[in-house]
């Protein structure tokens, strides 16, 4: 099979922004159901008055502070991660959608070294699990007290509502505003800086990319190691070398190359390849 490389984004990648917008409408609770007893698999703060579900990271942190195992949050993440892996980050997460929209502004972007992706695991282990467990919910480094999504979706919403109503403005704390400013500023000069550097939820889904039901795969027989996929990747990943990179958000830009595609564990092509006898073996007796 010969390798081809499209000059335009594949159709699936062009649909991504619409899928993200559709998911955003869901997360914003259009019917005001406020199902906060259910965890969503995306990064959307439950302090936002428009949040439909509870943020799984917030639930993990709060339950860590209570010393209770959050089966619901863990089960949701394992279930969704086991099926979709990194597709959740690139196709459903509203905070990721915001970063994608801001990054479309034509400003020069830069890449970070691959090792910086591991800082997300430090955030997950320290701020989401360890600090709440050992110091409680009131600690300044409790994740929800520094989370930019909470500052933006909850804090800024309350500020706007107070301005409209003419009441006292409940400004978020200075550290929260500074962190939000840095993250939003970084969105202009880097694709998905929060996802690449600090997102604990992305760190969780990154663990599932090698074992999820749906995944990206490079066909070694078609790939000619031309490195064009690396040039198309906005996140500094070399898809031909590390298609299951934990930083990958499955934007599918690299699938311009015919050697890279979406597969599943039920893929018929793979099944046939695994079960077909070698061409040089004798036919089975009738």
């Amino acid at each position, binding site marked *: 099979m010969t390798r081809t490389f499209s000059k335009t984004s594949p159709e699936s990648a062009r649909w991504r922004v619409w899928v993200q917008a559709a998911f955003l409408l869901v997360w914003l609770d259009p019917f005001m159901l406020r199902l906060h007893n259910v965890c969503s698999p995306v990064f959307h703060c439950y302090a936002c008055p428009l949040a439909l579900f*509870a943020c799984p990271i917030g639930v993990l942190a709060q339950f860590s502070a209570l010393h209770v195992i959050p089966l*619901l949050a863990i089960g949701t993440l*394992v279930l969704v991660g*086991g099926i979709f892996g990194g597709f959740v980050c690139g196709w459903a997460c509203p905070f990721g959608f915001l970063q994608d929209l801001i990054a479309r502004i034509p400003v020069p972007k830069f890449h970070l070294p691959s090792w910086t992706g591991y800082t997300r695991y430090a955030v997950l282990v320290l701020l989401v699990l360890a600090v709440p467990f050992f110091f409680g919910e009131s600690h300044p480094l409790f994740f929800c007290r520094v989370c930019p999504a*909470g500052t933006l979706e*909850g804090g800024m919403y309350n500020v706007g509502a107070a301005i409209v109503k003419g009441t006292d403005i409940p400004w978020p704390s200075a550290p929260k505003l500074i962190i939000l400013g840095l993250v939003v500023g970084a969105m202009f000069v880097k694709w998905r800086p929060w996802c690449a550097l600090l997102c604990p939820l992305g760190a969780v889904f990154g663990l599932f990319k090698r*074992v999820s039901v749906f995944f990206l795969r490079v066909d070694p027989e078609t790939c000619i190691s031309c490195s064009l996929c690396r040039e198309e990747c906005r996140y500094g990943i070399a898809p031909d070398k590390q298609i299951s990179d934990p930083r990958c958000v499955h934007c599918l830009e690299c699938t311009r190359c015919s050697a890279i595609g979406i597969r599943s564990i039920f893929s018929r092509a793979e099944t046939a390849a695994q079960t077909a006898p070698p061409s040089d073996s004798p036919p089975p007796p009738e």
Partner: protein
Amino acid sequence: MGNREAKSAAWRGRSAAAIVLVLAGAAAVVGAATWHAIPVLVPPAKTAESSSGSETPGPAVEPPSPVTPGDDGAKGPVVLIESEPALVREVTVGGVARLPSGDIQRTYSGQAPSQCPT
């Protein structure tokens, strides 16, 4: 032949891992919704705060007794067994906290807060 067998084994391993994860995740969600329950101490409602809205002042009442575990008095906290989904809702509004004794106590009496305090 060896390479094909290796690929086949890797594929089977991946498929098995994915199926196990999906089943484990589903089992955890079902277990959380149906089986996992957590005892939560509910502080006694303050008797000075009358819910009837009467204008006449009531009799002088003692302040609510401090919530301590093992309080068997009539004014002691009530132990409420909450399902995990209910507890998830509570934490989203800062409605529970962990006491130094290790018990979990509701932080409000009466109507629940509407927003997360963080």
